[in-house]
Each structure stands twice: as structure tokens, then as C-alpha cells.
């Protein structure tokens, strides 16, 4: 079968994207080329011969300062910021799934931190250290300043991930006897609820199960889905749910559950 022809706008936009890529990479490419500038040249064209002179200059002690020290600090700072961002925003993402006092405030603080001009935050942190009489350093004030910029990103991403994650998995894992940490380890591996009906949701938790309990587990998982469907249908008067609500006392099959999860368009989806 032949694919339908591309509309003219495709080619126009392809050219635009091509230009953007050149625009994004061009300047960086010139810097890469100029790094091999000859001994007499500077940060301008033309090239005055090709050499590794400037790399030698860079690594020679006492030429432009302590390059290795700078590297070490940057890498250490990057590693600390990364670890803290991943850990803190993952934990906060978990917290946001439950309602807690101040959740909305914390969310808006995070957004504010993201859009606050960096010069204002830096000024504030600088003043704070000045007033408290603490020496500013890369591992204290600079670390904190970086975190005010990376944590909101981390938090927003974690919220987005957890928003798409079906709480039924977590509950199912808990039903199967998983406790706190186990729920996190096994339950959160899969975050795409649409591809998994109730049956395989239980199978997913097999590391937790003894073999003879597997069937029971599958049944409980399906019942679980049914209960969720019912409790939702009770509160929801959306037409698409009244249809499912008729399954009232019957255990909804996993197929129904898929229908439910995939087909719900009402604003009160759990």
C-alpha cells in the first residue's frame, strides 16, 4: 500500500527544522574547530594553522587557574545535585499522591521557584549567608541555588509520571501482602495502565507470590478492579459509567476493567 503524499507544508517545515538545527549546532561547531587554532591565533577565524597548543595551555599548571580543581568541583556538585534531585523529588512525588496539609502551597512554591529569575534567588541566598555570617561555598550556597532550579523540574516530572500511574497497582500490591517498600519496588516498575488488564496486573506481582496463591491473587486483583469500578460508578453519573454500573454484583471481568479504564472520559476518573 502506498502512503498518502506529504502535504506541501511538510517540506516547508522540514526546511525550517533543518535551519533550526544548523542554527543550534553551527556556533558550537565553530568553537570545536577553533579549539584546534594555531599558537598565534585567537577566538576568531581564520585558522592560524592547526595545533593542540591550546589544550596544552589549558592543562599546564598556573596558566589559567586550577583546571582540575574546577573539574572536580563541577563533577562533585553535579553528582550531589543529581542524587538529591532524584531522591527528593521521587519522595515528594509519593507524598503528593496522598492529600496532606500544605500540598497545594508546596506545589506553588515549586512552580514559583522554577520561574523566579535566578538573579533574585542568588541575591536572596547571598544575603542570607551574609547575614548569618557563613562563608559562601560551592557545597553550601551554590548547591542550594542549584537545587531551587532542579527540584521543581524533578517534582513536575514525578507528578506527571505518578498522574499516569494507576493507583490500583499499588493497592493490588498491598492486597497481595506487599508492604511499603515492596510496593515501590515491584508496583512502580510498570506505569502504563492501559496495556494491562486486571489479570496480568496480578501476574506482575509474582515475585511476591507463592505459586499456590497465584490464582487467589488473580481473583482478588480482578475483584479489586470491579470494586473500584462499582464505587466509581456509584458516584459518577456520566453516561459511559451508567453502562458499566449495571455490572453491579457481578465480578467484572478483566476485559470490562480494561473498558472501564480506557473508556472513561468523565472528569471524576479516580
Amino acid at each position, binding site marked *: 500500500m502506498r502512503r498518502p503524499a506529504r502535504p506541501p507544508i511538510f517540506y516547508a517545515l522540514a526546511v525550517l527544522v533543518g535551519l533550526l538545527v544548523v542554527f543550534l549546532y553551527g556556533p558550537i561547531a*565553530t568553537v570545536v574547530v577553533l579549539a584546534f587554532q594555531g599558537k598565534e591565533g585567537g577566538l*576568531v577565524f581564520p585558522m592560524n594553522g592547526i595545533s593542540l597548543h591550546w589544550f596544552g595551555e589549558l592543562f599546564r599548571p598556573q596558566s589559567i587557574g586550577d583546571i582540575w580543581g574546577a573539574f572536580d568541583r563541577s563533577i562533585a556538585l553535579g553528582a550531589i545535585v543529581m542524587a538529591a534531585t532524584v531522591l527528593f523529588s521521587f519522595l515528594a512525588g509519593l507524598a503528593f499522591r496522598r492529600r496532606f496539609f500544605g*500540598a497545594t502551597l508546596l506545589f506553588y512554591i515549586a512552580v514559583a521557584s522554577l520561574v523566579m529569575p535566578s538573579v533574585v534567588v542568588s541575591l536572596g541566598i547571598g544575603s542570607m549567608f551574609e547575614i548569618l555570617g557563613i562563608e559562601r561555598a560551592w557545597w553550601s550556597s551554590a548547591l542550594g541555588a542549584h537545587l531551587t532550579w532542579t527540584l521543581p523540574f524533578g517534582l513536575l516530572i514525578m507528578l506527571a509520571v505518578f498522574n499516569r500511574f494507576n493507583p490500583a497497582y499499588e493497592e493490588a500490591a498491598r492486597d497481595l501482602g506487599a508492604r511499603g517498600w515492596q510496593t515501590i519496588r515491584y508496583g512502580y516498575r510498570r506505569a502504563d495502565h492501559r496495556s494491562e488488564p486486571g489479570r496480568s496486573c496480578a501476574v506482575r506481582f509474582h515475585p511476591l507470590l507463592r505459586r499456590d496463591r497465584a490464582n487467589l491473587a488473580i481473583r482478588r486483583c480482578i475483584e479489586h478492579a470491579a470494586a473500584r469500578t462499582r464505587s466509581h460508578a456509584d458516584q459518577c453519573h456520566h453516561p459511559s459509567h451508567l453502562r458499566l454500573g449495571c455490572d453491579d454484583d457481578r465480578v467484572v471481568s478483566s476485559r470490562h476493567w480494561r473498558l472501564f479504564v480506557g473508556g472513561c472520559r468523565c472528569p471524576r476518573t479516580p
Partner: protein
Amino acid sequence: MKRLSCAVNHRVVAYLEALPLAAVFLGFFVFPIALVVAVSFFRYETYQILIPGFTLDNFREVFSEAVTYRTYMITLKFCAIVWAITSVLGFFIAYFLAFQLRSRTSQTVLLLICSIPFWTSVVIRMIAWIPLLGRNGLVNRMLLGVGAVEEPQEWLLYSQFAVILGYVHLYTLMMIVPIFNSMMRIDRSLIEAATDAGASTFQVLQTIVLPLSKTGIAIGSIFVIAMVMGDFVTADVLGGGQVASVGKQIATQLSYLQFPPAAANAMILLLAVIVMIALLVRVVDIRKEL
């Protein structure tokens, strides 16, 4: 009884989980910003950076200088121009990525190509423009070679043009990603239905894609506006001391250790940013968009 203790337990766990994040924000964001507000009312002298007190002199000083109005006008102008360019560019590129490319792989690859420069340091990406735009730079050579100009153009570097170019270079991606994200959520059957009903590509763009990616545009705009308003590195490197933006003015005051006037200036900047973002937030509920 057991149920109750369980509920309490859950609540405690939630607080513990949120604690590290909240503590960092409290210590390095909320408190410092409150301090900026306080410091803007402090007095200062040459040898003592911060003298607690209450005076409106800093604000009076900021408002009485003609340079303040000039820098704010320039910064707002940058903001408007950069926003216009990045939102148009961002919209069409996101549209190309989301609707014109047919395979997931090519989408991912192209998005990755656009994001890689974003991983490089801002300073390096700014300095990279210097050999291109300078008096003896590549662009001038090319223009001379073609015969488009008689002599090297001075306005290419260390000018408002260079600063705007730098902003567009830095922040277009901040526009592309949110718009792409909201476009990927548009139900494809809407477009199919429109096409079947005889809509042209342009009509689809105008009546379906544009309204439904409004939230992405708003989020991207918030990013771009916040970053352009607060920037001081780009204005410094590509403006070369010729261009004064608000951020750079604050940075200069800081380098002279004039904390209170810098804080007063920052308060005004903050107010301007908040007003702009508040207007945008009326268009979009960020929490819902995740």
C-alpha cells in the same frame, strides 16, 4: 481504632516524604526571597553591606534614575521580541514533530537533536557566537565575500541584535517541548474527522491544533518570559557592556556589594514577572496539564 492509627500513619509518612523537598525550598527559596523583600528596605554604607532598618531610599533611588526606566524598557522589548519569535518557531517545529513525522523513532531522534545543545553550558553557547558575529567573524566575511555589504558590519555583535539572537538560540527549546507535549495529547480522530469533512491543512491548524495546544504555548511562554526577564549572562556576553538589561543591572549592583538597591530592583523585577505570569496562568491550569 486500628484503621484510625493507619490513617494517621499514612499522613505522617506523606509529611516525611515531602519533608526534604520542603526543607530545601524553605531554606534556599522562601527564606531568601523573604530576605530580599526585607533587604530592599535596609540601609547600606560602603564598608557595611547590610544595615537592618527601614527606609524607602532604595526604591526612591531606583525610581529616580532615568537608567532604570531605560533598562526596563529594553528588557520588556527583548521579552516581547523573543517571545514572539520563539512561540512562532516553537509552535511550527512542535507541529512538525507531532503531526508531520509519522514514526515514533523519527520524532524521538529529532527531539533529541533539538535538546542536545540544551545540555551544554549557557556560557559556552553564548561565547560560541563571538567568532561568528565579530568584526572579522564568519558572517561578516560571508557578507563581504558575496558583496552584500561594503565594510564589516558592527551591529552584529555586542548589540541588541546579538542579545536577541542569543535568547532565541537558548530558549526556543523551552517553547518546543511544552507545545509538543500538549500536541501529542490531541486526539488524532479530531484531525481525521476535520480532514474528512473537507478542512484544509491550514484550517486544521487554525481550528484544532492551535486552540488545543494553547496550554503548551502558555507554559512555554512562562519559561521564556521568566528566563529573559531574569537573564544577566547573555546580556553581558553578547551585549558586551553596551546593552543593559534589568538582570545585568542587578548583577552589577551586587558586584559592587550594593545589596539593598539590588534587592529593591529585584522586587520591581519580580513584580513585573509575577504580573506577566499571573496573566498567563489565567489561561492555563498547570497542575491539570501534567
